[in-house]
């Protein structure tokens, strides 16, 4: 391997325009020499800014360096150069899968397979993600808030009788507060309805509360459901309202899909 | 199963609304002499009898204190204990003065009970059919009338 690196480096010195940097970067990556691989990829990119494979190599190096958001942007730029680039679709599939966004991961992996159906690595990756998605669907209903930040700790959809429908609320101490919150939400809503009626405020639209340890937003995405979004004190009320708005859209879509 | 009984049916709806909205656990509507008109939540006749007699006594004694102080009659008394609160309040109707005794728990507040008492007294006034002024209740009649109303209240 060291000989390979030496010979490819020598070739690159002889001919800086050579595309051998792609193989050299890949070998250095495989050896765990991330910094060296990054230098080779960036040098190659300077000479070949429109070479999709060079960006793809750089994105994979960024993943090795745990710079996932940056890697995503690089792969997205690859798709602007070549919308069918298999490496970019495969990479994006991996990134979305690692974030739990299985739908988007599957979209990219299917496009990766379509680009080259003979690549067994990509076919196997697609099958593996499909298996995970199928097992989740079989075990529990599709999460209404998949892909939402805080979906597993700070978003809760309940029915009008105080039963949890989707999402979860975890307290700061790590306790699952879902059932208790779901039960209390009905009481607070009934009291809001009465308050709004008796004070002639009209129909209630939302409730925002700020507490000593966090903020919360309550709305009714449909006539028979309530949506509660909880965040820390660092998320101001305005941003919380936006989050709740988006979560409300997701909840309505999910509720519509649940109805026969 | 309903826990409400009323001598006169027109009082049922306002009383039901009051106990639901105010979160009252027990409620008694009576005349200042202790004659029971309707009750909610009591399960034994003896408790109604005792509550009516004590409520009437409190209304009478605070009325006398008001007179001594040259004040108009006290309209609302509100006591809050650790586990229960008590509201005792009088109001005028076309059939004369009536008194409401309500017991509420920690899930309600003096403010809520007073707020919905105001609505209740207005609803009772509106629903109350106008008749001749109530006759003076004599001591001799009191026990018989109380027993009659208790029989009606518990359908015995």
């Amino acid at each position, binding site marked *: 391997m060291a000989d390979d690196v030496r010979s490819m480096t020598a070739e690159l010195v002889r001919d800086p325009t050579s595309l051998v940097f792609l193989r050299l970067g890949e070998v250095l990556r495989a050896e765990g020499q991330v910094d060296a691989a990054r230098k080779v990829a960036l040098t190659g990119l300077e000479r070949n800014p429109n070479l999709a494979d060079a960006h793809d190599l750089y994105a994979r190096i960024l993943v090795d360096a745990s710079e996932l958001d940056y890697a995503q942007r690089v792969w997205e730029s690859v798709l602007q150069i070549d919308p069918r680039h298999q490496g970019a679709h495969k990479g994006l599939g991996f990134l979305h899968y690692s974030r739990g966004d299985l739908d988007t991961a599957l979209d990219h992996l299917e496009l990766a397979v379509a680009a080259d159906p003979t690549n067994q690595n990509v076919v196997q990756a697609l099958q593996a993600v499909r298996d995970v998605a199928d097992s989740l669907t079989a075990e529990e209903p599709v999460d209404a808030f998949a892909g939402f930040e805080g979906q597993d700790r700070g978003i809760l959809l309940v029915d009008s009788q105080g039963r949890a429908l989707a999402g979860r*609320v*975890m*307290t*700061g*101490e790590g*306790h699952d*507060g879902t059932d*208790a*919150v779901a039960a*209390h*939400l009905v*009481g*607070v809503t009934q*009291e*809001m309805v*009465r*308050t*709004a009626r*008796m*004070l*002639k*405020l*009209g*129909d*209630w*639209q*939302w*409730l*925002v*509360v*700020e*507490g*000593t*340890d*966090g*903020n*919360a937003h*309550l709305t009714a995405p449909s006539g028979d459901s309530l949506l*509660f979004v*909880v965040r820390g004190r660092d998320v101001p*009320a305005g941003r919380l309202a936006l989050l709740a708005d988006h979560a409300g859209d997701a909840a309505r879509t999910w509720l519509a899909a649940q109805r026969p | 199963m309903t826990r409400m009984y009323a001598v006169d049916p027109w009082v049922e709806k306002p009383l039901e609304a009051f106990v639901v909205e105010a979160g009252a656990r027990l409620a008694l509507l009576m005349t200042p002499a202790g004659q029971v008109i309707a009750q909610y939540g009591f399960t034994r006749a003896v408790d109604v009898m005792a509550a009516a007699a004590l409520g009437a006594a409190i209304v009478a004694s605070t009325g006398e204190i008001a007179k001594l102080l040259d004040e108009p009659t006290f309209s609302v008394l509100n006591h*809050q204990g650790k586990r229960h609160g008590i509201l005792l309040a009088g109001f005028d109707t076309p059939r004369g003065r009536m008194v409401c005794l309500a017991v509420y728990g920690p899930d309600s*507040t*003096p*403010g*809520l009970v*007073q*707020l919905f008492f*105001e609505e209740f007294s207005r609803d009772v006034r509106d629903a109350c059919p106008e008749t001749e002024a109530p006759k003076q209740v004599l001591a001799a009649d009191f026990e018989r009338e109380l027993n009659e109303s208790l029989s009606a209240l518990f359908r015995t």
Partner: protein
Amino acid sequence: MSDRFKGILDAITRVRGVRGAMIVVWQDGLIVSDSLMEGVRGNAVAALTSSVTKYAESVMLASGIGRLQFLHLQASNGVLLVVATGSETLVVAIAEPSVNVGLVRLELIRAAEAVK
């Protein structure tokens, strides 16, 4: 209304769109002091605000976000804004739906500081 509370509440009611402000005993739902436009039922605002904030705080405690500091109930024809003073009272404003909530919130917080 005492002069002390009058000044505090007037600062809130001076905000355009505010229909009334009051200081309420949280546990009892009774008014300590109020400054209300005609037609606003003070005793109803006090009793219902006390109740709705208690319910809201039970949800907050269950979800681990602590004690109530501020509540904003938005409705089609008006808003209810509440700040807990931290000493058994609430400062409450009732306002038009288009009121500058941020400004009222600031005045309520100022009032709460002065009341406690």
